[in-house]
């Protein structure tokens, strides 16, 4: 990050609003991830399964994020696509302790990547290998291999192991996402 860019960020001149979509299977921790980005006074204390979606707002480096926290329940997964069109980035949350459903995760990911509103755009995808504190959690490398992330050529992606309860690993990931989205915006202008 250049000195000038840092200055701009500091002064809040280049402040932009962007939409990100938070998806993933149910019980992977999407709402918890989004919750930990929020400022201290806005945080929810108890988190229940989302029905439909929630809209949350948070900031990172002068980029105002509007997160569409989608429900991961099987019944509602086909509703994600209604929100693909307007998003600037995707956060894909994976429960790294749930080995059994990793194939389901792969299936949903493939569907998402093949969707006409996604496949033509070069939008950044951030993967959180969540619940890294669990005993039998897979490492982020193993998950990347299992999902075949190395085959994604046309989109920037990044995987980081995280623990949404403590906030470990989240900041690193979201900083990468901010960087990517900012680059995309700069290219457009």
């Amino acid at each position, binding site marked *: 990050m250049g000195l000038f860019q840092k200055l701009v960020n500091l002064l809040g001149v280049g402040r932009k*609003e*962007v*939409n990100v979509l938070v998806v993933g299977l149910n019980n992977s921790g999407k709402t918890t991830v989004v919750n930990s980005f929020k400022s201290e006074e806005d945080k929810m204390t108890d988190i229940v*399964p*989302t*029905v*439909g*979606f*929630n*809209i949350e*707002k948070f900031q990172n480096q002068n980029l105002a994020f*509007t997160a569409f926290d989608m*429900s991961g329940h099987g019944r*509602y997964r086909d*509703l994600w696509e*209604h*929100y693909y*069109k*307007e998003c*600037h980035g995707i956060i894909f949350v994976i429960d790294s302790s749930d080995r059994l459903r990793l194939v389901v995760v792969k299936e949903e990911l493939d569907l998402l990547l093949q969707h006409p509103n996604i496949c033509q755009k070069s939008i950044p995808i951030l993967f959180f290998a969540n619940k890294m504190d669990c005993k039998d959690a897979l490492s982020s490398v193993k998950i990347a291999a299992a999902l075949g992330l190395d085959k994604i050529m046309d989109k920037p992606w990044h995987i980081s192991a995280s623990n949404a309860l403590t906030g470990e690993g989240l900041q690193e990931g979201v900083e990468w996402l901010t960087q990517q989205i900012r680059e995309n915006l700069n290219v457009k202008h």
Partner: protein
Amino acid sequence: MSAFKRDKKEEEDSGGNPFQNIEKTSVLQEARIFNETSVNPRKCIPILTKLLYMLNQGEQLSAKEATDVFFAMTKLFQSKDVILRRLVYLGIKELSSIADDVIIVTSSLTKDMTGKEDIYRAAAIRALCSITDATMLQAIERYMKQAIVDRNPAVSSAALVSSLHMTKFAPEVVKRWVNEAQEAVNNENVMVQYHALGLLYHIRKTDRLAVTKLVARLTRMSLKSPYAVCMLIRIAAKLIEEEGADNSSPYFQYIESCFRHKSEMVVYEAAHAIVNLDRTTSRELAQAISVLQLFCGAPKPTLRFAAVRTLNQVAISHPAAVTACNLDLENLITDSNRSIATLAITTLLKTGAESSVDRLMKQIATFVSEISDEFKIVVVQAIRALALKFPRKHSVLMNFLSAMLRDEGGLEYKASIADTIITIIEDNPDAKETGLAHLCEFIEDCEHVSLAVRILNLLGKEGPKTKQPSRYIRFIYNRVILECPSIRAAAVSAMAQFGASCPELLENIQVLLARCQMDSDDEVRDRATYYSNILSKNDKSLYNNYILDTLQVSIPALERTLKEYIQNSTEEPFDIKAVPVVQISKPDEQDTKPKSEGMLISSGPTKTAPASREEQFAVRLSNLPDVQSLGPLFRSSEVIELTESETEYVVRCVKHCYARHVVLQFDCLNTLNDQLLENVRIQLEPSEGYKIVNQIPCPKLPYNETGTVYIVLQFPENDLPNSIGTFGAVLKFIVKDCDPATGLPDIDEGYDDEYMLEDLEVTLGDQIQKVSKANWGASWDEAESTFFEMEDTYALSSMNSLEEAVTNIIKFLGLQPQERSDKVPKGKTTHTLLLAGIFRGGIEVLVRAKLALADGVTMQLTVRSQNEGVSELITSAVG
């Protein structure tokens, strides 16, 4: 806010409705702006307003359009603008029934409903409940319970009312919120208390005991909300009606104590409840009426209106009590509010003496042109009641009615006047000639086709019986020259009736009919040709069958059978006898109408009457195996209860009669929530001669559902006397205990059980369909030579009056009374009852019963029918 202001300015500029020329496609196009990354409330608010306006104007969206705009709208949740958010709630409610996947906003709405922003919460609850279905309700149950007992009254009310709406699709879930509702009844806020009581009552209303407890508890604690007290009065009044309690019951005392309530609304409600009770005695009535009397002099027009409207309703049932208010009502005649004045006058007309009729009629005439159609109808109904009460005043009333007929007015208004004139004509022979003359004059200038057709039909029926039938011909023939095809056709039919009934006019009628055969419309030509042909035959029985008596089959059934006939190409000619005969609609349907108007709890808009009960049954039955081969359905009986209404299993029976078979339809209801019944069947012990042809059991009967068992029986062959019989019946089934919450059985194996039912009777009335003959006398005379006649005399010792005897005979025989012979003139000791009907298999039955009153009733019964056995059956069944 700024957006609203701007809108207002635009409105002033253009001086009209800014939304006048909006188009669906352009609004949907504009709605795409909702999808933009950063939401601009100033742009979105007017668009959303337009969308809502459009939907409220009745514009229909397809499911795809609605879903697209719905999902676009969900993105507006990211804006924090208060006005925009509340518009989104409205939008969600509007689209919830059309768009797919509306549950997507569940979490967003739950967040708003539990959030800190009070202004969102109530509206979010209402929107949430409109998108929730029975399966999703579990997920939000916790929040609903919290909202019901919320400290904010708006939130609590919204939750309560929404719960009430949701009982429609998830009664079981809402039932679990009864404790919260109970707590809300103790709320300080008047609206919350009212809504909570409403929900509580709705949850418990099927359980009489619970309602009794509820009322007992609440009447002791003094409710703060006058609305809740009004509701409680209504519930108490309903309990009194159901239990048949008298004035010593605690409910009654509670209602009476409400007379001393400080709110006028409550006092009125109490008075209204008491005057509408079935069995109020004059003592309690006097108190209620005096309250209403006090209201008549109140300064508030609403109170005066309420009081006089109630007095008007009870004037018929309790005229003596209302007479006490006559002086106050006289004062209200000159009230500046026309509605109050109209009701006051019509009430006076109902209670007043014959001498005051002229004066009151003059009073009405002064302002009748100023009031709305709705109140004019009230006036007309009052005049009808008056005419029946004081037949001698018919000329004054008739003149007044004809003046009203000449005024401007809608169809309903004109129809009610015509109805009244027709009633007067039928009831009062003296008024017939003048009444017909007025109607003739009216059709000269009548813009309502249906009314003109009705009057022409009446002229055709009544005209030939007058002293000078020829004078009506001119009026009728004028219609042929001047009106539209449907009226011309009716006029042709009316003329033919004159031709058939008055031989001296026949020649002239033939000339007129010949001219009608040149008409431009084919229906008119067809009728003219048809009638002129029959009339040229000069055969009395042809006249009777094809001109005076019209077709008596049920029209939808005729359509159905004709369609079937055309589809299977057979050589046989179509048999009109195979078409079921139309059932004559009961006259008491009309009598109950005014009663329901004064009912305590509004039942919502009256449902449109189903096409025909028989027709619906016919369609259902024809889906059963084998039943199709039985021929057309002849008659379906009334529903008979075979159990007490509050037992474990409720069984109702409908008897469907066919030409040679009877199908018994048993509707069974399982009211035990911990039982699942399987293989439900009825074991029947038929009486002698009956044969069970087929049985269709009900495979499964879960809690609170109605299943149907059918049994097909064959009537005893060639043995008519035995067709009347009593059957023993037992309900048999396999019981499986199950979990009340899920309805799933605990174990796979069930055990057999049975349940005794009351005996079932197949009566004579079940086998006879009522028909009405236009000219009973002619048919009777004609039947003398061709039909089998039986005659017998009976002593009906248990009957004490002729009226009682007449109603019982009609009920027992199931025949239709003819020529208004079911009405016994007052003070007579003899009466002749004329009846007609069709026995199953299409056998015509005519019955004449001569009754004489002397120490019980003596009856001479003459039966004429096409079949000897049937005549015999009827005479023997009476004995």
